[in-house]
């Protein structure tokens, strides 16, 4: 390949070429188990994105560098790459980051419009609904998905709500337009279990004069369930080892909890207060499971040393506080203090607004750190919404950073993504351009949005 300057062409032109060359998806891959992912990367031409300022997601920053995409994967990253046959996306003056990952979203489960008909995120009928799966309530036509895509979100974990001690199983999705949730499921991503401590479960069930009505009741409810799951698991193992031993009757909720004890399902634990996190850590030790991340962890800064030692991620807001007493001690330096303690820091949204601007949420957390005199830069802070998030979801070997061999999940920004004025220009998922600001034909439109005259007919 000659010097990149000889291949200058506009983003829109390149978009047209790439669009014409794309083939349709093939048949579904054979993933085991029910409700398996049918997602398959779309075929793409080799592409070179050149001249960008790259935040790699591993803490690095490359100036005037290129990324070479082949077959939906990142084949090479660096300066002076050559690939004569590749389509070129001239990205001089633009910024390239890994695809943004939100570890805490309810898109599809709590869609827009928000109506009784669409509220499918919180099975508030029992403090233990480990039996329900978020994916069974995801509406792929939620107009919020393309809005999040326009904010650079390529992957998100959809979690059940937090009314219950055990809310159910979460699912990790790729933010691709699809007819079915299976077509969005991130292949190979582990499922998760949503747990919630604190005010929500005790408020919801206490108001019905039901247990739990206190934090004591919360923990007793958790422990009783883990004891039951342990017995279920032992009985199941005995039946597998011995033909004379009857397997337990199949129980969907205990399947989920046993999956946690087996280490196959990751625990994502909604927990605001530091003291309650410490109780949850002890409980995990008592029953022999690990906590992947505390969510809404507004008090992580108080026990950042403990969280670092335990290897537990904290998924945090940049600045939410005060709406509940357990959120009253939220401070803007939380994310940075967790980072500085050497623990895994993540910025999450829990919001159909926030998910559109996770870069701005990370930027605010970075500014709070600088205001407090801490030394942190953008290359480090981008990990809060990319690689650290991938790690908590168990997909960090696949996505979350710009490294050779990983999926080409990329976002091209027109300015430093930590600026309020930056806008996403292009979004790639497995190398396929699912969003292009310069090309209205390359911006997904949901079924719901078709001919909504209020929205502007499309």
């Amino acid at each position, binding site marked *: 390949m000659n010097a990149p300057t000889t291949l200058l062409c506009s983003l829109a032109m390149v978009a047209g070429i790439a669009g014409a060359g794309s083939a349709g998806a093939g048949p579904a891959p054979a993933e085991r188990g029910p409700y398996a992912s049918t997602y398959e990367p779309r075929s793409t031409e080799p592409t070179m994105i050149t001249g960008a300022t790259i935040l790699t997601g591993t803490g690095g920053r490359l100036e005037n560098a290129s990324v070479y995409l082949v077959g939906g994967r990142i084949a090479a990253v660096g300066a002076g790459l050559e690939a004569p046959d590749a389509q070129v996306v001239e990205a001089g003056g633009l910024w390239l980051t890994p695809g943004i990952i939100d570890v805490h979203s309810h898109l599809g489960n709590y869609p827009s*419009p928000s*109506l009784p008909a669409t509220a499918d995120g919180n099975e508030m009928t029992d403090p233990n609904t480990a039996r329900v799966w978020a994916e069974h309530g995801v509406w792929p036509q939620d107009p*919020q998905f393309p809005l999040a895509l326009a904010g650079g979100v390529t992957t998100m974990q959809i979690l059940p709500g937090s009314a219950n001690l055990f809310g159910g199983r979460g699912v990790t999705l790729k933010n691709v337009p699809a007819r079915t949730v299976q077509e969005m499921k991130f292949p190979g991503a582990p499922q998760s279990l949503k747990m919630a401590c604190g005010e929500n479960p005790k408020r919801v069930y206490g108001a019905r004069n039901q247990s739990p009505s206190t934090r004591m009741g919360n923990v007793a409810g958790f422990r009783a369930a883990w004891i039951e799951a342990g017995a279920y698991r032992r009985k199941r193992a005995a039946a597998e080892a011995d033909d004379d031993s009857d397997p337990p009757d199949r129980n969907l909720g205990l399947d989920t909890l046993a999956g946690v004890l087996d280490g196959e399902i990751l625990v994502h634990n909604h927990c605001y207060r530091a003291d309650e996190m410490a109780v949850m850590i002890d409980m995990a030790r008592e029953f022999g499971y690990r906590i992947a991340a505390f969510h809404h962890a507004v008090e992580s800064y*108080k026990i950042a040393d403990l969280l670092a030692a335990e290897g537990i991620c904290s998924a945090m807001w940049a600045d939410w506080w005060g709406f509940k007493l357990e959120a009253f001690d939220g401070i803007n330096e939380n994310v940075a203090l967790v980072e500085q303690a050497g623990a895994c820091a993540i910025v999450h949204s829990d919001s159909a*607004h926030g998910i559109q601007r996770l870069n701005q949420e990370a930027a605010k957390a970075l500014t709070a750190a600088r*205001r407090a005199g801490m030394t942190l830069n953008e290359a480090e802070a981008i990990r809060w919404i990319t690689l650290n998030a991938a790690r908590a979801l168990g997909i960090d070997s696949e996505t979350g950073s710009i490294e050779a061999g990983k999926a080409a999940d990329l976002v091209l920004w027109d300015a430093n993504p930590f*600026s*309020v004025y930056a806008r996403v220009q292009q979004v790639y998922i497995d190398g396929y351009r699912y969003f292009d600001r310069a090309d209205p034909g390359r911006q997904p439109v949901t079924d719901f949005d078709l001919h909504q005259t209020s929205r502007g007919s499309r």
Partner: protein
Amino acid sequence: MTMRANVGLLLVLVGWPVAAAAAGVAIVGGTLHTLEDDAAREGMTLLVADGRIRAVGENLEIPPGYERIDAAGRVVTPGLIESYSQMGLMEISGEASTVDTHVAEFRLGPGFDVQYAINPASTLLPVNRRDGVTRAVVAPAAGNDPLSGWGAAIHLGDGPVLTHPRLAMFGSIGWQSAEFVGGSRSAVIQRLRWGFEEARSFRPDRYRSEHGDYTRQDMAALQALLASGAPIVLSVRRANEIAQAVALKRDFGLPLVVHGGAEAWKVAGLLAEQRVPVIIDPLDNLPEDYDQLGARLDNATILWRAGVPVMFTAGTSFNAGLLRQAAGNAVAEGLPWSVALAAVTRVPAEVFRLGGGAGTLTPGAAADLVVWTGDPLELSTWAERVMIGGAWVATESRQTRLLERYRQLDGDEPFGFR
């Protein structure tokens, strides 16, 4: 104790140099936005004394005894004004005993008045003023009637905060209000029209309210509103209902302000022609219900192009400083920077008739200002100094104390002593 000694003691407590208790303050250099016009003024001197802006100009002589602030590399603007909040009316939104925003189960609609509940000791105020918010409109939230009552204006300085009781009447049109009147949006409009019609000839001694009618207390409030010329702020989002609100304004001579306005862009021409200002959250782009399927990010830009005065709300009383992020995003969606800054300073001061040059830094104006580390609409900057009514205010809050306590986790001292 004299006033001067009071100020001095306060400043010592909060750590500002004693020199701040000077005869006045001179802010020298930097980039100054007075909001008198769209200009960014470089290399000016701004003089403050007795709580007011005294002069703005080049090479002004600094009177003796003035505290001199070098603003080189800084940006100086009026303090930010949040146009729609519940500041001072709640501590923890999830705890009813701390929430005084509305009247739910009692017959008090437009007659409700928030002024008596505003708590100057609220922990929200120091948090917000640390982020450069110096004044706020305090609105009642929806209660049990399309009209929710009188709101007020406050400043976020020390001492009593209420500056403008009975600032404006608040209410809302849309499906939530429809729930108060039996379920139909049409009934909301009917109730409002009937109420204002009756209020024109209301006489307390002759008024008999039937079941569901406005009480005498409510009717008195409607009549007072008609007589006062105070604004009526209606939260309304759907385009056809915004048009209904404008019709109310026209028919009853009400100085209407639209709040919410997610679909205001669709009736921008009407709003401009009828001179109706709009308070929006520029990030409100979700089709989150059938009142705002048309919500979009460039709402502010379309309104401004049509000539509609635009104001912003952060949409949260806990972090009113997010006004900056809201305004910055509006700029990214096409709004001129100076218009975005005016939307959080001069325009709300004018619309809500705060008076005294509020929202500007012109001579004679109340000295509410912020010295920013850079572009105040950018995410990478912060408020370095905040002045309210001519006095630098402490930028400590409960949150800064928590940071101090926990920023170093090692050490022997129990955390309760830190």
